[in-house]
């Protein structure tokens, strides 16, 4: 057991303009290792399997509990969170690459700010009058809370966007995460004041019509958010809104 090792192959790119290359690493195995702890090990001893000095891997991470959404990357070809990718469950060599649908920053770091811009476009918030004391909020029955809570668990990791065949520069599709947030806020007793605006924001190019029902999103979501249900519900609402707007002229 003492000699058991872990093999990784990590895609490196020093900057958006620099050439891509793969580096191999061989690390001592330890129980409970995940892909993050393997990269921490490399930072403490940045030497490749061939014995060449290299640099620590650049990657985004923060909570390491699969709740902050930072460390999404492709591991053995699958978009997932590096912190919850346990080495013992992965086939070796473990191939680690950055998400492919977002602008590369360095190594495994990519720029996912498009999601936050999308959330602005659909007004993903409840418009409270102010933060002064206005007494209790609206009554919400447990059944409603149970329906909304899963949608509110979205960690903005963008795995659903990475795996979506329609999420690409040609369509400008907003992706499943944003659509699920529209459902969340349209369900809220106060949030629904913007319901029509949100639906209209999803009615045009890049909106909900771009969805091709590949259903990859719901498979990839680390939080098991019912994304395809959200897409079909909001798709229906967008259609109804379009008809209403057409009738109103």
């Amino acid at each position, binding site marked *: 057991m003492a000699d058991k090792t872990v093999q990784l192959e990590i895609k490196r790119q020093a900057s958006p303009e620099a050439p891509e290359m793969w580096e191999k690493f061989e690390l001592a195995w330890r129980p409970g290792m995940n892909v993050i702890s393997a990269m921490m090990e490399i930072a*403490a*001893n940045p030497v490749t399997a061939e014995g060449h*000095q290299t640099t620590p891997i650049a990657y*985004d991470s923060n*909570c390491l509990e699969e709740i902050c*959404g930072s460390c999404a990357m492709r591991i053995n070809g699958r978009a997932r969170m590096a912190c919850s990718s346990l080495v013992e469950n992965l086939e070796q060599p473990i191939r680690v690459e950055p998400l492919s649908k977002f602008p590369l920053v360095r190594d495994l770091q990519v720029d996912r700010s498009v999601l*936050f811009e999308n959330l602005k476009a659909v007004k993903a918030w409840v418009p409270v009058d102010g*933060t002064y004391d206005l007494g209790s909020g609206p009554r919400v029955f447990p059944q409603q809370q149970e329906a909304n809570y899963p949608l509110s*668990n979205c960690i*903005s990791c963008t795995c659903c966007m990475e795996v979506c065949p329609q999420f690409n520069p040609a369509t400008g599709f907003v992706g499943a995460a944003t659509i699920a947030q529209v459902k969340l806020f349209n369900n809220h007793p106060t949030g629904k004041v913007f319901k029509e605006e949100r639906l209209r924001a999803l009615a045009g190019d890049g909106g909900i019509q771009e969805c091709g029902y590949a259903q990859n999103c719901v498979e990839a979501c680390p939080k098991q958010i019912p994304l395809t249900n959200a897409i079909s519900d909001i798709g229906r609402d967008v259609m109804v809104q379009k008809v209403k707007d057409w009738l109103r002229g």
Partner: protein
Amino acid sequence: MAAPRIIVIGGGLAGLSAVIKIAEAGGTVDLFSIVPVKRSHSVCAQGGINAAKNLKGEGDTTWQHFDDTIYGGDFLANQTPVKGMCEAAPAVIDLLDRMGVPFNRTPEGLLDFRRFGGTLYHRTAFAGATTGQQLLYALDEQVRRHESEGKVRKYEGWEFLSAVIDSQGVARGITAMDLRSMELRSFPADAIILATGGVGAIFGKSTNSVVCTGSAQSAIFQQGAYYANGEFIQVHPTSIPGEDKLRLMSESARGEGGRVWVPRAAGDKRPVKQIPQSERFYFLEEWYPKYGNLVPRDVATRAIHKVVYELGLGLEGQPMVYLDLTHIDRATLDHKLGGILEIYEKFVGVDPHLEPMKIFPGMHYTMGGLWVDFNQMTNIPGIFAAGECEYQYHGANRLGANSLLSCIYGGFHAGPNALNYAKGLQPAEGDGGAAAELARQAEINASLLHSEGTENPFRLWRELGKTTTEHATVLRYNKGLKQADEKIQDLLDRYKKINLSDKSQWANTSFAFTRQLYNMLQLSRVVVLGALLRDESRGAHFKPDFPERNDEKFLKTTKASFTGDVAGPRFEYEEVDTQYIKPRPRRYDAAK
């Protein structure tokens, strides 16, 4: 006069709370954060947020909440701000509810509450077991709204390096580094609010997120700010040991009925299900019949330590005990604790519905932090602090579910106070010292890049974490604390011989880490030496050689200031405000 410019550093609950209040009052804010603010460490809080709403017919009051908090903190907290926080708490919950936080509900559609440690009341509002995530998102959404209206400008991916302080000692802005281009810049401001969270990284592995290094607090401390009660470090009784970090297992698991136990016989090899009730040692319930599994964290942590290290009853001889939920029905667990049980199963590979979890204490929270006055301002005019990075709400030990509250309450105060301060500020002379400060930071960067030695920063960090965890967490001995300080001085020496394996100037994460490491080393001396000087036991600070609380000598706030000397920080002590509740012995084996 031009509109005041306020800079908020840190986008967790405290920072976002401050931003919202300033934007609402008509101010504009520059918000700096290392990570996109939605990924801040506040997301990790699980169990809930306290407020004496008294919706369970128990006769709970804000005074009870105040008393529990002061008592839980072993009387070290100044009472005036704590009283204000507890009185404001019910309105804070209402506001969060109005913002759309999906709090759990009663059948009548009202907020549900659960019990947490250190109280006998159901006082904790919760959204499943992801309350921090839900609260952060609600505030993040409000800030996004203000951002889209042009009141907030975000600088995500920028790291705060230092304050710009003028010749009068007044803050005039900050310096920061773009973590992609590595560009250094100064930003002018009339007031600054630090909301930069905890210091977990100085203990190596903790329940904290990667960004919780304490680097920002340490930088300000080295520029002249007092750091208060640094020796008070909370070790959470129930964490899941891991290779990369210690993952939190929420106190809400016990709040919903989870029981902590070990087999009565040392080294019992039987499968857990075959150990009969009579042969299980529910030590918290036996030792603390009134509070049982819901004693405060410092008490539970020491009890687990005793069971493992003194009685030798750790599971299979390992430093672990059971946290058992298997007697609770699946629907209740999934409804109230879903998120955390999933995390345990994902990271450990065992289903906690079916088998007890294996847990052990892990470093979790700093009660200490930047010294602030009752207006949340540090001793440097113009620098405010809110959230975990300041010291004022939790005394010697924090009660569970009070941290989210103190973050929001502190931010709600710091924001308007900073705006008021800024409105009365006289303009700076010249650039207020910005160019000189920027040059100082550029010099630090250059010397790191040119440093030629053999030391690896990540390995120095591991050594730091090993020594602080060994000597400055659950049990503290003066001999060990002295050793720890010598070790830190040695690491500071070796820091001068760091050789960066990556000297590039694009998204150089190890370069940024190495800068943080220096600040971690300086701050860890405050923790270790503060603990060395406090010869008593109070809250989370426990010295077996001085097992009693000593109010005569140490009912005082520790204030450390930076000297730059090898001898370390200078320490002085300040009287504690105890005007409302007279200090009394703290014990949890009987009713208060």
